[in-house]
């Protein structure tokens, strides 16, 4: 059944027990992204080891989100894949994931690079769900880009870094 390809066990596992969930401090950038089609939302924070360095290691990604299994699981997998990597490495993984899920099923995805992310290859066959899979990733891209050069926020006052 096709559905099992979409909802692979790995996806359901991440959905039921998401990794790195919750909003943590400190962080240099926070973004809020929505999927206007279905109203799914994610608030996501990025903390870089060295915000003055565009090649910095991603120290932490924390988030609070509301959404379907695909968007929740994809965000969880994303945090596994980018935390501890340098920004250029993280962006490369992001590009590879994006390419896979927008390929309409023509690109399987490299397990070496994408880890649990390859489970989302099935999403590519459901074009209406691609945005779900990318919600958290796009939020990360946005937050990570603005974290570079940003100042560290501590003390839970959302303003300042919120955009």
């Amino acid at each position: 059944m096709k559905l099992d390809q979409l909802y692979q066990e790995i996806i359901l596992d991440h959905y039921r027990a998401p990794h790195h969930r919750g909003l943590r401090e400190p962080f240099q950038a926070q973004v809020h992204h929505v999927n206007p089609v279905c109203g799914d939302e994610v608030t996501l924070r990025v903390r870089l080891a060295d915000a003055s360095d565009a090649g910095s290691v991603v120290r932490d990604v924390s988030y609070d989100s509301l959404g379907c299994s695909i968007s929740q699981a994809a965000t969880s997998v994303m945090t596994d894949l980018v935390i501890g990597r340098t920004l250029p490495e993280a962006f490369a993984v992001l590009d590879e994931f994006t390419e896979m899920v927008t390929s309409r099923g023509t690109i399987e995805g490299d397990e070496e690079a994408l880890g649990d992310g390859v489970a989302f290859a099935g999403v590519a066959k459901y074009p209406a769900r691609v945005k779900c899979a990318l919600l958290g990733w796009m939020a990360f891209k946005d937050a990570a880009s603005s974290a570079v050069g940003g100042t560290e926020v501590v003390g839970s006052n959302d303003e300042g870094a919120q955009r």
Partner: protein
Amino acid sequence: MTNSQHQRTGDRAGVVDAVEFARLREDFPILDRTIRDGKPLVYLDSGATSQRPVCVLDAEQEFVTGHYGAVSRSSHQLAEEATDFYEGARSKIAGFVGAGRPEQIAFTKNATEALNLVAYAFSNSAGYGAPADPSSPFALGPGDEVVVTEMEHHANLVPWQELCRRTGATLRWIPLGDDYRLDLSTLDEIVTRSTKVLAFTHQSNVLGTVNPVDLLVAAARRVGALVVLDACQSVPHQGVDLAALDVDFAAFSGHKMLGPTGIGVLYGRYELLAQMPPFLTGGSMIEQVFMDHTTYAAPPQRFEAGTPVVTQAVALGAAVDYLTDVGMPAIARHEAELTGLALQELGRLPGVRLIGPADLTDRGGAVSFDVEGVHAHDVGQILDDAGVEVRVGHHCAWPLHRRYGLAATVRASFALYNTADEVGALVDAVKDSQRFFLGAGTTAAGGRAS
């Protein structure tokens, strides 16, 4: 008269029982197709857009292959015939919604454009820098108020927000109650002497709630406000007499009433249309043009700038014939039966919360619900896998969803071609989604984030 050549679908007046309705399915070839891996299509998304009977396509083909030309512009025979078809369609649609004269019907691209047309008429009446003529019914400015409701489709909310932004008027709204109906307890404080427009939907596209048009019109009349009715979800499903409802304007879309995409309808009280400034300008909507100014044609041409939606109008005329032949009272009864069944069956599933009135009183056939612990998108995916096509999301009514603490719902909506078996397929698929995501009695942690 060329319009008489139009083929009626046969005399179906009086069909009422489910067997006859099931037979109508033959008129909709798409209903025979399958979905995903060979599942029969169960189309429960007519609230978003309805399917089209063959006679609508036939009418379009007959017109295009036999009578097509420029309407109202040339004097050759084809132009005359095309104009007859176009104006004939206008007359049919006028008759269908109780408009006294065809000139009360203007064709637009969709209902959204029709609502924008009215909203822009208000700001255009300000005369670009000059203050609005205070005697104009369309004069609007700071201190004036526009009233909508919390249940509106974005199409009947955003144009009014924008109008207020352009004119300095204030937007107010009638809140929703916990019973999924408008809370009219403070109506007199919301609709006041400052109110210039009261815009509301006849039937909610999410809740199914049918609003008390008479009460709302009376409130508007007491203070001299104009009434704009969003009739998108009522005109396709029940007999609607806009003149009897006494509204000033109404809008609906062709594609939700068995007609084509690309056509919407604006209905207006003629005296008001006659005073209303245009929205879009250009060819076909003029009376006289000089290098420095222009005078405008009478309604409805004033509101149909450019080459109009001729082919779509002819096809919509055929859709209206089809609906009339089946009979709107019979359609309303049939859909009420399906709605009642869906409310009953879904209502007794544990973990399913109906978002809308639970019984058929003042209620139409949009059945929205939330499945506890399973996101609407995921429910929709399981339903789709079973061939059941519904809409998931906020259905272009985000504030309504926010009011009930929801990000998204699942909506099944019915049309005359649906059957009781299809309601059964829906209910079974909802149960499947619970089994798939919740397993035996467990609740997914991720369904709703903190």
